[in-house]
């Protein structure tokens, strides 16, 4: 056993760190110069699409290099990409799309000119996603589908140009069959997007009403009725990415700094045993989870399956994200009650909305309770 990265991997880590130092825009530039950052990543050799296979322009990273790459990007708070195109739809297009579909959609996904949203959840289909009811009926001449229904919790639908959408083309047989994967343009007059303001006060998710939208069959991915199979692989992919370990490592350090800036008596909040022990308990678990991710990586690097440990990443990782947001909320003290106006501690303004917003992490991408069902069944063999 050896906990150290190899010389080659350490050299790669240095290369990534140097690249970030040379290319990451500073301060406010981060927002205005995002495009240049992604361009630099692209010119470096496909680093803008680090998870894509080389055949589609991605870099030839080993599993360890990819881990190091993700870790360094998170540690340096580099601008994230919207996950829907690059991370979620692209792998499906690569695996199940036609050459025409790949040529048509992948370039816009990669250069960020086309925003995508995910049309999965419905009012009657949340954790039980296969229960979806949005109908897609093939026209008599077989050239297009007519889609009717409603999607909900659709993240960033209000800025999306396209939606990848699960629709029902057949209601016979088990629920998982008869689902068809369609690509729908959001500028169709039959699409109506209504905002949902979440309890943190932000507008991220939406309702999407779909009324008599005609979708040409060229916009269907794979075979009719097989959409569930395509989406399921994606869900697994989505879940492993949601643990956010390195972001949490960074966020916990920030939360400790915040607490140290809060004066309590002669000391700071970090001297208050009840608070400090919560920080310690959280950090110990995060250390363990971080190493659990490395155990998974080691198994994959050795050519094996990720192993049962990987199943706990989303479940535990999101719980930790929530607990870090709680620390900030508590550190904000009385100022946590102020809404919107910057008063009191410098970090206090965002603390409450971040805490409220973080409640979603154990709901989206498979609620924690569903994750437990999945682990019980697939890992522990419980009926």
């Amino acid at each position, binding site marked *: 056993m050896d906990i150290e990265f190899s010389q080659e991997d350490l050299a790669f880590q240095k290369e990534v760190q140097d690249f970030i130092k040379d290319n990451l825009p500073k301060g406010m530039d981060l927002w205005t110069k995002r495009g240049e950052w992604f361009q630099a990543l692209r010119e470096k050799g496909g680093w803008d699409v680090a998870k894509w296979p080389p055949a589609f322009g991605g870099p030839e990273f080993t599993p*360890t290099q990819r881990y190091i790459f993700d870790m360094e990007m998170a540690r340096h708070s580099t601008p994230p990409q919207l996950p829907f195109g690059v991370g979620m739809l692209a792998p499906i297009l690569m695996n199940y799309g036609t050459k025409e579909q790949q040529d048509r959609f992948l370039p816009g996904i990669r250069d960020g000119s086309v925003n995508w949203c995910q049309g999965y959840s419905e009012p009657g289909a949340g954790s039980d996603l296969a229960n979806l009811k949005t109908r897609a009926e093939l026209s008599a001449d077989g050239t297009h589908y007519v889609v009717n229904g409603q999607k909900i919790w659709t993240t960033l639908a209000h800025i999306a140009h396209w939606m990848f959408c699960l629709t029902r083309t057949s209601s016979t047989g088990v629920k998982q069959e008869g689902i068809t994967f369609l690509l729908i343009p959001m500028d169709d007059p039959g699409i109506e997007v209504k905002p949902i303001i979440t309890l943190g006060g932000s507008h991220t998710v939406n309702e999407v009403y779909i009324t008599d939208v005609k979708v040409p069959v060229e916009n269907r991915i794979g075979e009719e009725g097989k959409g569930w199979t395509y989406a399921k692989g994606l869900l697994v992919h989505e879940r492993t990415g949601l643990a956010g370990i390195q972001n949490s490592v960074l966020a916990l350090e920030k939360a400790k700094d915040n607490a140290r800036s809060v004066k309590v008596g002669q000391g700071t909040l970090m001297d208050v045993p009840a608070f400090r022990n919560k920080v310690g308990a959280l*950090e110990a678990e995060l250390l363990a989870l971080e190493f659990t991710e490395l*155990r998974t990586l080691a198994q994959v690097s050795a050519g094996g399956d990720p192993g049962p440990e990987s199943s706990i990443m989303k479940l535990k990782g999101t719980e930790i994200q929530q607990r870090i947001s709680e620390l900030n909320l508590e550190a904000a003290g009385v100022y946590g009650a102020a809404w919107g106006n910057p008063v009191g501690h410098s970090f206090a303004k965002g603390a409450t909305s971040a805490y409220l917003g973080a409640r979603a992490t154990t709901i989206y991408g498979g609620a924690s309770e569903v994750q437990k069902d999945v682990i019980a069944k697939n890992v522990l063999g419980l009926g």
Partner: protein
Amino acid sequence: MDLSYTEEQNLLRDSLQKYIEDNYDISQRNKLTKSDTGYSATNWQQFADLGWLGMAFSEADGGFGGSAVDTMVMMEEFGKGLVVEPFLSTVVMFGSAISEFGSSAQKEQLIPGIIDGTLLGTVAYAELQAHHDLENIETTATAEGDDFIINGTKSVVLHAASADQIIVSTRTSGASDSKEGISLFIVDAASNGISRTDYPTVDGLRASEITFADVRVSGDQLLGQLDQGYTVLNKIANRTILALAAEAVGAMEVLYKDTIAYTKQREQFDHPLSEFQVLKHRMTEMFMEYSLSKSLTMKATMLESQNSADAQRTIHALKYLIGKASRFVGQNAVQLHGGMGMTEELRIAHYFKRLMVIDSQFGNMDHHLEKFVA
């Protein structure tokens, strides 16, 4: 980075598993825990013959040059088998301290006997007023010529009744809670002035209260530097914590797996318990606690074996996490076994009790959480 075991470590694990399978079911263990010494001298000799007692010692000292990872592999299997032989006290606590800090004369005198199974040792560190503070020591060693005179009482000394030699932490100078002024001595268990009260521990092992009344030791019996014994003592604590953590991981694995097996065959309300969601989720949480404990045990063990600057902090985090996980897994194993979980008959009770004792040794979870965040 490579987190797999070496070929030798796989063989070691296989031979331990086979031994435990052949020699160590719960009824055999119960016989041992009810015997005079609380373990089997025959088993101990076999441990020696199989090379397990020499694994952790360097080749120069006559051992096999094993690492902390080898000890982790062994302790995890001992944890699964709930092994009662005094490996922890003799090899991990006593032996590794001699090997790292002993003079060449001390090593030559003591290590061969450990490896061939003829010498048992332990460490007397706990005191009544200390709670979990390693440095809080009121037992004194007073210089008299080249000798030292030890007076004081040590508590819950593991396997002291079987031990031939005991490392005793004493105060040679400084205030009773100072890390300075601590000195360790290797004391012959048969020395004049030593009296013991022996008793079983809740997990079926043996321990003693030991009183030292004007026990004379020579300067040659000092382990490490005079007044600088805290370094040695802390090293013993760290090594022991890593070993205990691996043992706890092994015990937790048995507990969560036994619970799964039991809920599959036990029916209530016309269904196996394993079909009830509230129980499935609880067992998932038990599995998570076990997995995280195993991860941090691996990490801390590797950091310690590489003398990393992060090792000390990680070991504090580990002892906290192990304590918390052990309590959760142990309590829920009993809970999900229902009335059967309360019986002496099932082995889970014994694993649960072992985990309780592990938390109490070398600082419990609260103690180490405090140290971790300090």
